[in-house]
């Protein structure tokens, strides 16, 4: 199931999330918006690496991938993305 979510909190930039969720796992993922990530290409790799992770393990996998790629985020919180993914999985 493909879900689209738009999320903005006072402390973050706008996030447009598209996720394919099937059988408790993320099968496709696109995070778009006016947030910042340094280095930018590192974030591209982080995003790609999250395809295949479980919904339950999403946040820890996201944080581990950021650490591995040495990526700093500004205006995007992995916890918010994980919440959106969990909500979407519940609705599925």
């Amino acid at each position, binding site marked *: 199931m493909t879900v689209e979510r738009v999320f903005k909190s006072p402390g973050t930039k706008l996030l447009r999330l598209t996720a394919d969720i099937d059988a408790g796992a993320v099968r496709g993922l696109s995070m*778009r918006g*006016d947030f*910042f*990530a*340094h280095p930018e290409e590192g974030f591209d790799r982080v995003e790609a690496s999250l395809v295949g992770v479980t919904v339950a393990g999403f946040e820890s996998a996201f944080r581990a991938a950021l650490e591995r790629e040495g990526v*700093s985020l500004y205006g995007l919180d992995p916890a918010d993305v994980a919440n959106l993914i969990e909500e979407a999985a519940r609705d599925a």
Partner: protein
Amino acid sequence: MTLRLLRTGVARGAFNMGLDEAVLGSVSEGRQPPTLRFYGWNPPTVSLGYFQGLDDEVDREACRAAGVDVVRRITGGGAVFHDDELTYSVVIPERHPLARADIMESYRFLCSGLVDGFARLGLRAAFAPLNDILVDGRKVSGNAQTRRKGCILQHGTVLLGVDPERMFSLLKVPSEKLKGKLIQDIKDRVRGLDQLLGRRVGLDEAADAFADGFAAALGVELSLAEPAADELAEAERHAEERYANEAWTAKR
């Protein structure tokens, strides 16, 4: 301390972004000193942040019909309609005394050059984290930073004038019904120098003021130069291979 000053006038968006990247390369490799550049845009151009979705943000058909180019930046942040504005970029090695490791401090410090420039035009401006500058609570400048090849690149805009109706004829809006509200929102929250000063400020006058502002706030001298031949060639190469390349523009 001296910064090289480039005033490259107006150019197309793909070249403008290509030259910022070329300067990043030449400063990174020590071929050129840290550099401050001022420029403008012709034709008018929508630039997208690195992580933004092209089809989320831009009405490409409307842009084509209006003769407006679309480019994706190598910096994050939001979509900008570049028309009546002064744009600057600054490139500094991360180990340079003017560089700040912390991102917020780095924005604040480099934006102090703009705040000083606004003061020279008679306006009391303030840095608003993470990446805006406000006058009387209204946005007058947006900025974006990246760190690559051991350098900081920050570029940003100073609005000479604002045309929200035109802007939202080029950017996607959730619905026609919401368009009026978004236009009003920009009218409430964003200001051009023309509105703030009650007169037109041209590209050259603005560049003079902000060059002086950067020099004073950063405590540097500016040495006016032309881009080197290799930088211009690299700018054209980046323009062709990246910024005018559909695969890059439609990357997200």
